[in-house]
């Protein structure tokens, strides 16, 4: 039986006391352990940010990439060796700011991977600037007079652009979060989990209390995650209502399944020796 320790490196986590990452981290490890996925079968690609400092704390194939680019690297990993379980892991800044293009396009591709976004509504590693999901009006170091923009809607954007698993979790609810992450990992296709994450150090607005007044469980609200319209509706509510659970899940062929070259074996297993191009070259005559 696998357990959390099997995924735990020797590097001591450096998050602040009370940081939501301290809950997402065990939840992710428990999900992997409960699914019986051995650490060396997992490639986890991180962004740059507080959350992504987690790259040091996991014991598995951990790739600490650059800000905003966890998804492209993860895609390359998946396509090169689709027998791996691939998890991309990012903060909201990396996911919806710097890297939003990859987010939208990964949804479209339905590539089989899990995308965990630690959404603390802030750029925390850089000490507290506005993120795309920060609420309108919020005062941050980069917006001391309040954010002008409407906040980005990751859930709805994912649903309407092809993600086949779209969920929201809350860092203060470890069991709920663990269950969602498990389902996301099990899902075949692009599984996106927006994790509402507490940042007690810099985010003094979206606190535990703030969330408690807003979150509700979809499972208790009779939500049908197979229903597109219900999913879009749940995702486009005003921010006084924050659904937790799986908003949307359908089954569609994955990106890898659309590539004939991957039908027999992972790309990395193909021999590079004795590739014969003679006949092809002859067509250039």
């Amino acid at each position, binding site marked *: 039986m696998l357990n959390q320790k099997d995924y735990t490196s020797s590097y001591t986590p450096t998050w602040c006391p009370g940081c939501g990452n301290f809950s997402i981290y065990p939840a992710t490890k428990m999900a992997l352990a409960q699914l019986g996925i051995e650490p060396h079968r997992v490639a986890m690609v991180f962004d740059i940010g507080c959350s992504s400092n987690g790259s*040091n704390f996991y014991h598995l194939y951990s790739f*600490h990439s650059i800000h905003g680019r966890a998804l492209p*690297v993860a895609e*390359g*990993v998946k*396509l090169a*060796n689709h027998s791996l379980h691939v998890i991309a892991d990012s903060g909201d800044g990396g996911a919806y700011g710097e890297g939003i*293009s990859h987010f939208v396009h990964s949804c479209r591709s339905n590539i089989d991977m899990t995308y965990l976004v630690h959404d603390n509504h802030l750029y925390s590693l850089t000490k507290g600037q506005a993120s795309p999901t920060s609420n309108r009006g919020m005062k941050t170091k980069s917006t001391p007079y309040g954010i002008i923009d409407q906040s980005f809607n990751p859930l709805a954007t994912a649903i309407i652009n092809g993600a086949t698993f779209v969920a929201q979790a809350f860092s203060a609810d470890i069991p709920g979060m663990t269950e969602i992450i498990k389902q996301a990992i099990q899902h075949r296709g692009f599984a996106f989990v927006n994790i509402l994450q507490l940042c007690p150090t810099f985010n003094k607005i979206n606190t535990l209390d703030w969330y408690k007044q807003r979150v509700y469980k979809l499972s208790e609200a009779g939500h049908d995650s197979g229903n597109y319209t219900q999913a879009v509706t749940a995702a486009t509510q005003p921010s006084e209502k924050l659904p937790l659970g799986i908003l949307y899940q359908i089954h569609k062929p994955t990106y890898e399944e659309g590539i004939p070259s991957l039908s027999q074996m992972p790309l*990395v297993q193909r021999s590079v020796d004795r590739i014969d191009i003679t006949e*092809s070259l002859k067509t250039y005559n």
Partner: protein
Amino acid sequence: MDENNFNWKIGGEAGYGILSIGAMFSRAMLRAGQCVFDYAEYPSLIRGGHNTYEVSVSPKPVYAVRRPIHVLVALNQQAVDRHVDELADDAFILFNTDNAKVGEGVCKPSQTVIGIPFEELALKSGAERVSRNTVALGASFGILGAGMQLAKEVIELNFSLKKKDAQVAVVNVAAAQAGYDFVKKQLKKPGRYSLRIQSKPGRIILAGNDALAWGAIKAGCNFFSAYPMTPATSILHTFAAQAPKYNLVVKHTEDEISAIGCAIGAGYCGVRSMTATSGGGFALMTESLGMAGMVEVPVVIVESMRPGPSTGMPTWTGQEDLKFILSASQSEFPRIVMAPGDVEQSYQYIQSAFNLAEKYQSPVVVIMDKYISASHKSVDPSDLKNIKIERGQVVTENELADSPDYLRYVDTADGVSPRALPGMKGGMHVANSDEHNERGFSEEDAAERARMMDKRYKKQAAMAKEIPAPEIEGESHAELTLITWGSTRGAIQEAVAMLRDQGHKINFLQIAYVSPFPAEKVKDVFKHAKKVAIVENNKTGQLAGWLREQTGLSPDFKILKYDGRPFFAHELVATIKELL
């Protein structure tokens, strides 16, 4: 009589099918057993603007496009006006009487001017007006006096590749025949430039991008991610088309950042991966280039240059990105930069790029430009050298089981740390873009930091040892030594030969591996050279700058060109003669 030795050019409006008919002419010449080099000019527009295609033909290898033009097909007035100065004294000018005229005194009396109603002939043959280009092909064959068989062959091939209805080919063959017959009737004396069909020696015709793509496939590159950008795009097309046959994964990504990110992810997993772009796309890749350097992931990046700055002249040629590539991305890390000089080198060096990338766990940038990427050259398949595949150091699961304390970034004598690939039991580690220790954990200690910088730079020393030094080519005891890089090689080869015929001894050094720089070899060349000139397709003399930085030496002359056009051999000859 210049049998099988002539330069043909066709010009007309964008939309006239100049590029496709030019390629067909090239191919027909190849099939006639000739050597061929071609070059096309066209603006960055789908319609409008002026397009040209020229093909230099010879029984012996052609290394660059040649001038003057012996046969010009002018499908509109501009083609007459713009190219009349490029003609040989005894050239043939076939112009379009449907829309152009050749005024009196425009051509020399020694030149033969034939007006042809290209469009009328097309329509009469049952083809559409757009088949004026096929008429032109037939007319060209009329001049060359070699029968219509090869023209017919390439027309049929062309339409079958495009999956057109058989009838389309039939009327186009008829249109070509009409052009052929028309010229035959007009031609008073047999053409001075003629084609004699020779037994096919098995040559093929490849653009640099074709050769590079096939070299990569041959080398086992089965992952290619890219975003289209002229002049690199055709590599994407080739890979995409060959995907099922060669079990490739080809991803047209949302942008260049994703293209290189995917390639790095794949390279990290142990797959040979590549991306290709031009300068603007490369700019977007620079941040990730540094990630590959830091994380020590093998990846091959093709940068096919076009004139800039910025969008610049997308469909033209230049060698302006060298310095950018040499120091792209923040901070310092070793990288390999190479620039093939012709089709054969494109095929060969791309293979070595993959070996070097994997052996040194490093990004390798292969520099091309529009001229080498897009110009077709006939090659003998036996000149396409295959390089032994070397995959660098990768641990095995058994080794990992034996020594459980695997250190991904272990500090070794040559700086190369054996890789564990994702999926291997016992090889878990952090592949880290942060500065890290041997284990891969983020590390900020002063001594460890300096040690890891040193470890990475040890690889540079090792690369420098492995990379072949450039060799002097051409005459020994030369009056002048040219130093160059990339596609300029061809024009220099041609120029050196022309100057030899004129009694001048010139030799040259093509620096194919630009980084790490072969400083000792270059110093040696300077020591022995009478005079040195650097030849580059840019304004500021970028190789000259890099060379000076690496050696302290300056050439006696810089021969620079930055008008979007490649060097032409005859221009080089003229310039060089002024320097002698």
